[in-house]
């Protein structure tokens, strides 16, 4: 929870609002979310909710960093638990491999988080100014994933940035299409997407070749 000095009741209400918003975004997305719906779901009055957040922008500015923090903690935890090496080895794709594997595993284990992130991503496409750009999924991955830094050993800075951003966008596209929609797609009898690692090895292989020139 954000570090704000406030009474216990206010703190509880704020937590209640943020938790409800998180669940509702995961469930329905932001397009159809209103403060009234949020208040009803959180069992608070509209006036009370407005007391804490007047706009969704303010609400997301508190909520999203919390979700991201939780997500990255879970990823770190997964890396520790599986003993996946984070040290950069160009041949093996180093951070690309470990970061995306961790993210993929965590999202599989926590479908609500996957839903939240995908829904948020869809909404940001239409409303990019809602969140500070550094908190958008792809730039965030580039900023904190170590991919760009790793690629910098193979190519210049601008190229590393470009390739890192492309890797992040591609990972998100893959996740949305294949992990998130798996239900809908398998229902359609579509050829089952090959394993995540197949995608990852193709992508990493390609990116390393591009980085080397």
């Amino acid at each position, binding site marked *: 929870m954000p570090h704000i000095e406030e009474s216990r009741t206010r703190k509880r209400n704020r937590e209640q609002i943020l938790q409800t918003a998180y669940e509702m975004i995961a469930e329905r997305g932001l*397009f*159809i979310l209103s403060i009234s719906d949020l208040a009803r779901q959180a069992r608070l009055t509209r006036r009370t909710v407005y007391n804490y957040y007047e706009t969704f922008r303010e609400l997301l500015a508190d909520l999203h960093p919390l979700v991201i923090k939780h997500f990255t903690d879970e990823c770190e935890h997964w890396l520790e638990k599986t003993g996946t090496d984070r040290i950069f080895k160009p041949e093996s794709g180093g951070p690309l491999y470990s970061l995306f594997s961790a993210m993929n595993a965590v999202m599989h284990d926590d479908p609500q988080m996957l839903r939240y992130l*995908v829904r948020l991503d*869809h909404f940001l*496409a*239409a409303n990019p100014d809602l969140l500070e750009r550094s908190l958008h999924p792809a730039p965030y991955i580039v900023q904190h994933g170590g991919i760009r830094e790793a690629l910098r050993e193979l190519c210049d800075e601008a190229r590393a940035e*470009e*390739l890192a951003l*492309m890797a992040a*966008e*591609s990972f*998100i*596209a*893959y996740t*949305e*299409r*294949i992990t*998130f*929609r798996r*239900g*809908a797609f398998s*229902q*359609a*009898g*579509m*050829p089952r*997407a*090959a394993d995540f690692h*197949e*995608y990852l*090895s*193709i*992508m*990493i*292989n*390609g*990116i390393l*070749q*591009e980085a080397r020139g």
Partner: protein
Amino acid sequence: MNLEILKYDDSRTLAAKRLHILNSAYRLFLEKGIDPVTMVAIASAAGVTRRTLYNYYENRDLIAEDLQILTVEKVNWFDRLRNRLSPGSDLFEALMGFARELLKFHLDEMRFITKFDNYFADSYPSDKFPRYLADRFSTLDREIEVPSAFVTIIQVYLAYLQRLVMIAGDSAFDYAEHEEHIALFTRTIVRGFEGTT
């Protein structure tokens, strides 16, 4: 648009009206997205009464689903790609040609499909669209045999293109502006694929 694929038992008059309703709804969806469009708005855009509209469709989502089938059929990813991937063709050139065609000449269709996919990400309005896909894929399965890695790259490729369209939103999407980036992504995917298999 050819409504045959939707398998209605309409007389010619009814079919013409259905087509008119679908066209009106398509324009509304493209302009506003799926969620804000109501049956009332569709009726009014099509110049029919609500009662007439309900004779054709029970709800908005079913209209969107019919439009999705028509749009996917029109864009025809499957044949388009297959035509470009004849034996001996260059994979990079084939994918670039595919992307160019979709993003230059079928941008509205790509937009509609993207809006539909995002809005109905969890489940489709009925089993009509998944059944259509299943039909389409079962024909495809019989006709060509491809390695699973290839299916993966095609899926990722399409997802990536759709993502570009999504991020551009409703602002004009200038293919020429994105071509260099699309070429980089295409090359990466192709090099990765060829290096892996």
